[in-house]
């Protein structure tokens, strides 16, 4: 089984970076189909519904891209920290606090002209998210408390804190439900239906908005930061071999802090999409699991922006198509798709080496036979 020895230098990049992840994804989806069957529904019908729901009509496709936006942010957040060997599973809490940041900046500076108030709100989201990640980062590097436990605890603490704020401090007092007042309409980010109106396409409503472009920009930002700067190099060095990094004069403490803060900031940007773009107010529990989905997105995308984009899109399809499924199939709830995420993390993360030796040696034999012949 693990006795197969493959000369890594002979394995083409597309085998290890495309074929193997696709095989793992297929396995995860096959097991998901089994779960849908156990729940008493037809998995093939479910796939048809997913494809129709996410591509079949323009509004559905807009929803797909809206979810993709969120998953790009949380996927990048997990990936950046992971390059420093840190498991930031606190994206959920960081996004929650990031939402507070974007709201506080936007509501207090709404008198500023439009692009400036947007930029400042984006900074607010990033800084609040980063600040929430700073404490676990500090405790990890200085006190050695495992970042997985602290970030999970910070998710619970963020949730308690935000509900306290929403109930007692910043609640819209004219409403019973715990949410804030709406931001003034003048500073809302333009939505997709505004653009599509110009193009002559009429749709009723879609949550897709300008934040999608910010997400694409973040992909470039992360790629540049991690692979093209000295910071990124140091961060990866610490993640790869801390002892060697120390020997080379790189400070693990500094890089753990930087990696976690950038990670938290990226998760915080989810607040821009949700609050400046879609609901225009803070609602209790708005991160709705996107932070956890980011883990699956990042692992499936092999922690690289080029992989994270299609992975985020795939999860966008699963979410939007999934809501179509839950609507049509009474036995399937949206939690089934949480289980699917778990399977994808399992197969493309923990079990990524399940068939890797077999697949790689298969291709190496095929390719080199041709060369030798």
């Amino acid at each position, binding site marked *: 089984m*693990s006795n197969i020895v493959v000369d890594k230098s002979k394995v083409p990049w597309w085998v290890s970076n495309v074929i193997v992840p696709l095989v793992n994804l297929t396995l995860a989806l096959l097991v998901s189909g089994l*779960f849908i069957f*156990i*729940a*008493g*529904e037809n998995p093939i019908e479910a796939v048809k519904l997913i494809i129709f729901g996410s591509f079949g009509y323009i509004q559905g496709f807009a929803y797909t891209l809206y979810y993709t936006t969120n998953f790009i942010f949380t996927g990048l957040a997990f990936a950046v920290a992971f390059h420093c060997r840190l*498991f930031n*599973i606190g994206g959920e809490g960081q996004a929650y606090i990031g939402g507070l940041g974007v709201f506080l900046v936007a509501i207090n500076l709404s008198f500023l002209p439009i692009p400036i108030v947007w930029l400042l709100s984006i900074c607010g989201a990033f800084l609040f998210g980063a600040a929430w990640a700073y*404490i676990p980062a500090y*405790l990890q590097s200085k*006190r*050695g*408390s*495992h970042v*997985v*436990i*602290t970030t*999970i*605890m*910070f998710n*619970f*603490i963020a949730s*308690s*804190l935000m*509900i*306290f704020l929403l*109930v*007692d401090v910043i609640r819209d007092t004219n409403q019973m439900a715990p949410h804030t007042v709406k931001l003034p309409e003048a500073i809302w980010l333009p939505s997709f239906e505004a653009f599509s109106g110009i193009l002559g396409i009429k749709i009723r409503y879609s949550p897709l908005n300008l934040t999608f472009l910010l997400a694409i920009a973040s992909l470039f930002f992360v790629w540049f930061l991690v692979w093209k700067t000295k910071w990124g190099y140091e961060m990866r060095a610490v993640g790869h071999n801390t002892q060697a990094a120390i020997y080379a004069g790189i400070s693990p403490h500094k890089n753990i802090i930087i990696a976690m803060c950038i990670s938290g900031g990226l998760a915080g940007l989810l607040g821009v999409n949700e609050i400046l773009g879609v609901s225009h107010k803070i609602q209790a529990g708005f991160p709705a699991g996107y932070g*956890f989905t980011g*883990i*699956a997105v990042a*692992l499936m995308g092999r922690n690289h922006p080029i992989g994270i984009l299609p992975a985020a899109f795939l999860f966008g399809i699963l979410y939007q198509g999934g809501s179509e499924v839950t609507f049509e199939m009474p*036995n*399937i*709830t949206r*939690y*089934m*798709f*949480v*289980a*699917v*995420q*778990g*399977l994808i*993390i*399992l197969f493309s*993360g*923990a*079990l*990524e*080496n*399940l068939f890797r030796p077999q697949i790689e040696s298969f291709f190496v034999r095929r390719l080199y036979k041709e060369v030798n012949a």
Partner: protein
Amino acid sequence: MEFLSDIASLINSTLRISTPLVFAAMAGIFAERSGVIDFSLEGKMLMAAFVAAVGSYYLGNPWLGLLLAIIVCVCLSMLHGFASVTHKGDQVVSCVAINILIIGLTTALAAAWFGQAGLTPTLNEEQRFLEINLPFADSVRDIPIIGTLYSDILSGHYVFVYLAYLSVPIVFWIVFKTSFGLRLRAVGENPSAVDTAGINVFAMRYKALAVNGVVIAFAGAHLSTAVNANFFREMSAGRGYLALAAMIFGKWHPKTALIACLLFGFTDALQIRLQGVELPAIGEIPVQLIQAIPYILTVVLLAGFVGKAIAPNAIGQPYIKER
């Protein structure tokens, strides 16, 4: 006198609330002492709660529900072992996968099978564990001190509460006084030395994970078939992580882990008592902030403000046999 009965009820609820934490911490000791990180205590506890509730609903006997929960939890532990011991996958990723999978699966199946959003049907008295009244509990109640101690604190708990505290000396004995325990600790400290001595490192880690699965099942069954009479969505509420923090704070040692679990249980019991109470000088603390106290305490304890924790040497590293 009212003060005394307040104290008694606080201790009583501390013992009850700490129970799942104690089971989870003991389960964690087995896995982590053998060198396998186990963040998936949370997911396994949740799965055990679900399986125990569904099992005893259909089979009519909570003990059968517990048995099913044990089987399923051992399977999940084996899955964790398959990914992280056999295939040398990342142990933390494997745990996160299991946790997310279980959160989704339990809720989705509960909805599919019972039609309620993440709830299983309420169990009747035959399908759940009931509180055990120790003999003579009623007759000695009026004796001062001893009566309170025996009747109000020791008596009237679910069977799991007694099992949990009984498990601590048993785990201590297994881990520190038997040859199995010696091998377990050696595999976690220096697997290549153990391998040289002719002991199969992989088999030891699988055995440790199997025990871990058995023990954690009790925590879940306690939640859904004893304290509550059904399963509900995400009912483990971070207890797996709290227990792991308690275990780390207890330096991977049953006795100190027990103390840490009791401390968590006590804070939780206290936060329930404090809700809606006017405190002198501070006033009423908002309920959401009080509920966050156990989580904040976890962070503070883990930060090692109380002492430095040293993990088993080989923890988190897959063992690669040299050829």
